[in-house]
């Protein structure tokens, strides 16, 4: 799979840019696809330097500071935003609902 999408110097194909754009819910002209292919390829090329680092015995960072851990709280009902406030920025609404274009 990897060889289809990129090679070892980080370069990616235009099809990969289109595929990732689709995952990201973005659409691009052919010209943009070519531009992003070049720019992202250069960035990924630079990033391949990470392969120099031996991380065989290293744990990935899961919390920024060692003192941090999962935080729990009591499951209590508190006041939350009123429907009016929550809808105050809605591009489109109907009653207490956000309105969107048809789904199917």
């Amino acid at each position: 799979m990897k060889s289809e999408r990129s090679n070892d110097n980080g370069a990616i194909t235009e099809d990969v840019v289109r595929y990732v754009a689709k995952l990201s819910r973005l659409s691009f002209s052919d010209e943009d696809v070519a531009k992003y292919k070049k720019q992202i390829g250069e960035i990924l090329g630079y990033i391949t330097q990470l392969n120099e680092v031996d991380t065989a015995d290293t744990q990935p960072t899961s919390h920024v500071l060692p003192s941090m851990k999962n935080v729990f709280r009591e499951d209590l009902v508190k006041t939350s935003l009123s429907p009016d406030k929550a809808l105050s920025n809605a591009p489109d609404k109907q009653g207490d609902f956000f309105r969107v274009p048809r789904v199917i």
Partner: protein
Amino acid sequence: MDTLTSSGIKGFREWIKKANKSIGDFTGIFVDRAKDMDREIKGFIEIDKKSIVSRAEQNKCQTDGRLWGIPIGIKDNICIEGELTTCASRILQGFRPPYNATVIEKLTSNGAVLFARANMDEFAFGSSCETSCYGPTKNPHDLSRIPGGSSGGSVAIVASGQVAAALGSDTGGSIRQPASMCGVVGLKPTYGRVSRYGLIAFASSLDQIGPITRNVTDSAEMLEIIAGYDEKDSTSVNIEVPKYVNALKKDINGMTIGVPKEYFIDGIEKDVLENIQAAIKTLKSMGAKIVDVSLPHTKYAVSCYYIIAPAEASSNLARYDGVHYGYRSKNAADLVEMYTASRTEGFGQESKRRILLGTYSLSSGYYDAYYLKAQKVRTKISDDFKKVFSVCDCVVTPTSPTTAFKIGERMDDPLQMYLSDIFTISANMAGIPAISVPCGKDKKGLPVGIQFMAKPFAEETLFNVAYAFEQGV
């Protein structure tokens, strides 16, 4: 009004005392003055006089509030209830948050007058303030140059004295690098020191709000006000907030300061290097013990960052879909088309680049090679600092390899732009506090910044050394 431009919070405080006017009246004067001063700099996206004055008048804080009447600039990614907050992006066009960020509550309860909408790179994606959908802010020291970024607006309005201080956010250097380029003080606190509740997220494991001020004293005072545990931010840390202003001491006799050789590399401008070397001599002459140290994984920090930050950003930006708030495209027949068209029309180029990069590195089959690898190298970067802080109190480096560059110079070369954060990114990776303090000027008359970094929650060490340095030069 000249003292207002140069002396930060103290200058505004004294002016207010002497003026003997109502808060509405003097706030109106400050607003008019800022509007006039900002005409060419464009540090603000807009200045809404009516709103600023009426908020000041309605604030119930008494006149003995620590920041009573003091104008504080707010970056456009920190939520103020009912006030436009857009991250300088079209996709958040018209967005008025239904709640206040915790830092906004804290400033307001201390009497500060909020000057909203300081310009920034779109979603804080940038090092020059040029990716704002409202156009670039200019460096007050040279209007043909960038102010740095992403908190370029916050920094420019402090450097030009329009406001006494400002809040910015720092994900990879976004407070310190522009502070350096505009000749002011910029602090990135320890991760978890300041609540991020109400800061519109860029990269959640790296973001931190911090003060931008004209001097180290104001930085300590501002941090004392905005720091602290917040139950609304599960990554804020429940450690008591010290009286930071008590750390402002001129004495650094016996302090051990490390000089990491990896920060003195090819690519640093000659003038920057010379200023920093002279500063290190000054610190030595003040009694500090200067030691050579090594942070061997420094050169991988930018690579790590440009995997982790876009990956987190692409997740955080998935929420902008035109449904709940912000921009919605009218060019769509169904829901998925609406998502795609809203995002395509709403995001700028740099945001799209980072969304693509982040989505790619998180996509199936690539997660291990990119994101997981980067998080492992991140551990190595943190471990480097742990080792170094076992032998020294803080380390000193340049904040940025160059002084402010020309507007437009790096816009077509993202990699070159990314490398301008080479010295600031590691502190975000390791979650440690770091401060940039003015350190003279180069031959073109542009400010140079010096950076001090310390171990987690050692902001007092930073204020001590930064204050001593500021007073000593």
